[in-house]
């Protein structure tokens, strides 16, 4: 990184890289968010998902090894 790059150019590449990085990471972020929602809330609209009640009941279900319904 010996060469100096103009600030506007570095800002543009930074913006593009951050956008693409977040887009690629988004499915993982989304599944983390959904893991803190109840099953009913998790199938709502994105806005409903973000604003609904946060809960750890999914983790409790996994821990008690009691499956409510088969996925797939």
């Amino acid at each position, binding site marked *: 990184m010996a060469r100096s790059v103009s600030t506007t150019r570095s800002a543009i*590449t930074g913006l593009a*890289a951050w956008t693409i990085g977040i887009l*690629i990471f988004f*499915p*993982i972020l*989304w599944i983390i968010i*959904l893991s803190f929602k109840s099953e009913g809330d998790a199938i709502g609209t994105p806005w409903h998902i973000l604003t609904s009640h946060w809960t750890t009941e999914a983790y409790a279900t996994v821990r008690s090894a009691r499956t409510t319904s088969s*996925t*797939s």
Partner: protein
Amino acid sequence: MATLHTRSLAKAMMTPAVAVLLVWMVVPLVMTIWFSFQQYNLLYPERTGFAGFTNFEYFVTDFRFWAAISNTLVLVLGVLAITSVGGILLALLLDQPFRGQGIVRLLVLAPFFVMPTVSALVWKNMFMNPVNGLFGHLAKAFGYQGYDFLGQSPLFSIIIMVAWQWLPFATLILLTALQSLDREQIEASEMDGASALERFRYIILPHMTRALTVVILIQTIFLLSIYAEILVTTNGGPGTASLNLPFLVYLNSIVDNDVGIGAAGGVIAIILANIVAFFLMRAIGKNLEA
């Protein structure tokens, strides 16, 4: 100082490891070939004995066989195209200096560490579901109907999932190749008046060919055996739309309980993989030398 004595000692000490690896490789292969010539159906245990080439005949004349072959090729080539082109572009982008470079690299790398089954479930239920998925909700927000990805274009959907998983790998390898490029070469070419496109075409791309070769070879090996994504999402359907060769082997040997035909399919898959590897090595193998 390799005298005759030390050389034979080295051979003796290597023998156990080589023997284990040989057994590890040869026993399953020989068993597969053996089963492929046997009548071996778990539902009919009384039917045993040598079957000749009937297992192979059955597998090849199966109406799903050619669909499986073409789907396998489309899957491999599609993912290869997306990941190598996307990987080059992403590597070029991430090589530029900007704020939070390390974090962005981590974000881009993350999908590679998600298990195939989990990623397929996430894509299937959270994104591609026409009613409850995120894409479905987005489509509804703009007044369209949700698109049934896995029902309408199953193979394309699976290509997207797999490409999402393998893009980080290509990016990582190509980025490390890019970082080993001598900056002075770029500066010199700039002084000589090379445009950005010319720099990419004549300096950066030739520098990356070896890394690209590695990416393509390794990915082809793994993409030929894609199975979890198909099992979790479409089960090869609708019809034969997303059936690939490993999945057809699974259908024959596990679902239909016919180990013999499954083994024959496995042998055919091995032969095809070797043909692909042969042409691949010949086409791009010269990049690995020098």
